[in-house]
């Protein structure tokens, strides 16, 4: 960046960024404000908190009763899905990066090709049919099974490059000491590539956390819904209690925010990497 920046220039830059961020955060602020209001209070004044004495705390308790189930479903799907994805990715990228064997490139290109073939959109109908025949409709396991399918592509690409850069001698000496493939993965790759793995995990986790279409099609029972679909159903109810809805949105946003606060660095890195991957 230019070294000598004028005062005015600085003000303009900070002002513009702040302006952009203001619009990003206003919806969140309004969400919080409205979550304490009844519909009448929302109608009268949506902009700021009312007198704390009139806050509608029951919005939060009602919202918690409905949303907490969705949150636990979402956590189950995202955590299991991400763990499975990670295992699969580690195994195959270890094999591809460390050894030469016939068909290795074919496998790698097969994985990469899915990145360029338009994913679930064109094939949504047949995918649904397949999952129906596998008896996975109305089951959270369908989402767990589908998580690695999209998630492993970027993972294999990133991890393969990373593992190829690890010196061969490390693996060889471990092998002489009698370490098997899984031990090599656990004791060499995991510690050395912890940061890049966490990046991959965050990308996958966010992906299944935000997945809408598949759960919308597959899940029928109310107590199986994940956060996005659950919130969508709540929004579709006939008489809207905005306060309860907004409290629900707030509660649904909290789990990831908490994780975010503890691993900010990885998030910033992970999202940039995910962004470049497109």
């Amino acid at each position, binding site marked *: 960046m230019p070294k000598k920046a004028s005062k005015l220039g600085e003000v303009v830059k900070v002002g513009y960024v702040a302006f952009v961020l203001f*619009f990003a955060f206003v919806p969140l602020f309004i969400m919080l404000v409205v979550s304490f209001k009844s519909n009448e209070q929302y109608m009268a004044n949506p902009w700021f908190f009312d007198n704390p004495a009139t806050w509608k705390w029951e919005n939060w308790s009602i919202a918690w009763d409905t949303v907490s189930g969705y949150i636990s479903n979402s956590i189950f799907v995202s955590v299991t899905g991400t763990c499975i994805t990670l295992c699969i990715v580690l195994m195959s990228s270890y094999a591809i990066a460390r050894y030469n064997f016939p068909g290795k490139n074919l496998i790698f290109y097969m994985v990469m090709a899915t990145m360029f073939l338009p994913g679930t959109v064109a094939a949504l109908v047949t995918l649904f049919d397949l999952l129906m025949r596998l008896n996975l409709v109305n089951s959270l396991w369908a989402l767990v099974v589908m998580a690695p399918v999209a998630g492993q592509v970027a993972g294999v690409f990133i991890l393969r490059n990373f593992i190829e850069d690890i010196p061969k001698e490390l693996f060889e000496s471990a092998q002489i000491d009698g370490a098997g493939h899984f031990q090599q993965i656990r004791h060499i790759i995991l510690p050395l590539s912890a940061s890049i793995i966490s990046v991959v995990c965050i990308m996958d986790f966010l992906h299944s956390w935000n997945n809408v279409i598949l759960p919308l099609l597959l899940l029928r029972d109310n107590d199986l819904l994940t956060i996005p679909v659950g919130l969508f159903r709540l929004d579709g109810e006939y008489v809207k209690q905005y306060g309860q809805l907004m409290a629900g949105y707030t509660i649904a946003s909290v789990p990831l925010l908490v994780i975010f606060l503890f691993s900010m660095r990885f998030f910033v890195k992970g999202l940039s990497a995910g962004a470049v991957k497109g």
Partner: protein
Amino acid sequence: MTEKTRNNQVWHRFKLRLMLYLLCLPTIGSLLVFSYYPKADVVLMSFFRWIPGQVLEFNGTSNYQEAFADPLFWNSFKLVGVLLLANLVKLWPGILAAIALHRIASNKLRYFFQVCFVVPMVIPMMVWLLIWKSFYDPDFGLLNRVLNGSGAMDILQALDTAMPALSNALQPAFNGFFNPVFGGLGGLILLGVYIFALGNRKEHDQSRWADYGAIFSLALVVPVMSLLGLMSTASGLGITLLIAVGVMFWLSRRLGNSWIAWPFVVLAGVVVFWNELWRLPLTLVVAIGVFELVRAKRDFYTGKPVLMMIALSIITVGAALVLLGKVWTDPIGQFETGTPAWLGNPDLIVPSLIFWGFPWVGTVGVLIYLSGLQNIPQDVYEAAELDGVSPLGMIWHIELPLIMTQVRINLIFMTISTLTAYETFLILLGPDGGPDNRGMVPGLYMFRSAFTEGRFGYACSLGMVLFVIIILLTIVYQKYVRVDK
């Protein structure tokens, strides 16, 4: 080496290979079953009338014929076109935000803002959608309150009578001048695009005539075919399509990377001049004439700016006329009550979708641009400073050219997601795309055909059409991105 050790070695290698394949098995298996199989199945099922578990009968290409004749499907692509054009405008706030963020002098402040840009991504996407949806609510929504409070609603109300009047006043100009001369405003803009595309050509030797001929051959495929009467039957249409794709492929090989856009620009011409195809070669001749005139006097470096200026002013005039005369042609009649239903009125849906997410700074985009900006070496700035480039000029001369790759990546990302993503539309407007199907995008139409109308085979054929379009776009974009790397 004894027989035994060699056997041992072979066995050892076999065991290792087996183990490696086993390690890759989950990846291969899951992709084959859940990614490749459904995609292959789509191709197959698009030739069937199909309701899972009930009906499965082969009906040839009739799904495709219906898809190509389906006005709703075509209109959904029109909406995508409008949204893509809007994307070209929506791109800029993000680029500027990234540049501003990158240039903030204080490191701490910069990191703080960077973290702030990540926070919105941590909030579930659905929460954003639903909050914004609540903003559009006619009675409760903040949008209407802001408009009413700031007096903007009165301006909209005034425009609601002024714009249709202006459009009416412009109508004689369209009928008397633009339609007969250019074949409509689309033709005018297309002329600008052709001149723009030609302006990028560097060589000015004898080979250009052969290249013009090659472009003409593509421009003539469809008109000749329709003269021969082949366009009326389904098989004739298929043959025309095949020939056109073949010529397009040949053309892209022949013209090379710098002219890669031509096959697609010519194809766009076919769409624009669909009812008067003889205008397409004519427009090409005019564009080439302008190019030859300019280049006869100037070389590439002095001629290019002139050509760009001509092209851009034609495009600007065309676009301005479209905006003034073709968009707001009838009064909407929603503003005098002060509570327009943004997502409930057919005329307001598209503007609402375009306004969606103001000020259009996608956090992903900002992060991509930042990664590009961070690679710009310090001395480039210092050199520019010595040359007396102002801070604003640096945006144009340093940062934009150097993050072009990232901008392109983001543009690809935006284009493909505009073409494929329909979650937003489903959530905002329902499976019908709102009143009058104004908010119908191709993906949503596919979704509706399958899951609300139960026409799964038809949905598969729609999916295939989308699939082909996206593949073509990806190939073109891949070429573009690689050229600059």
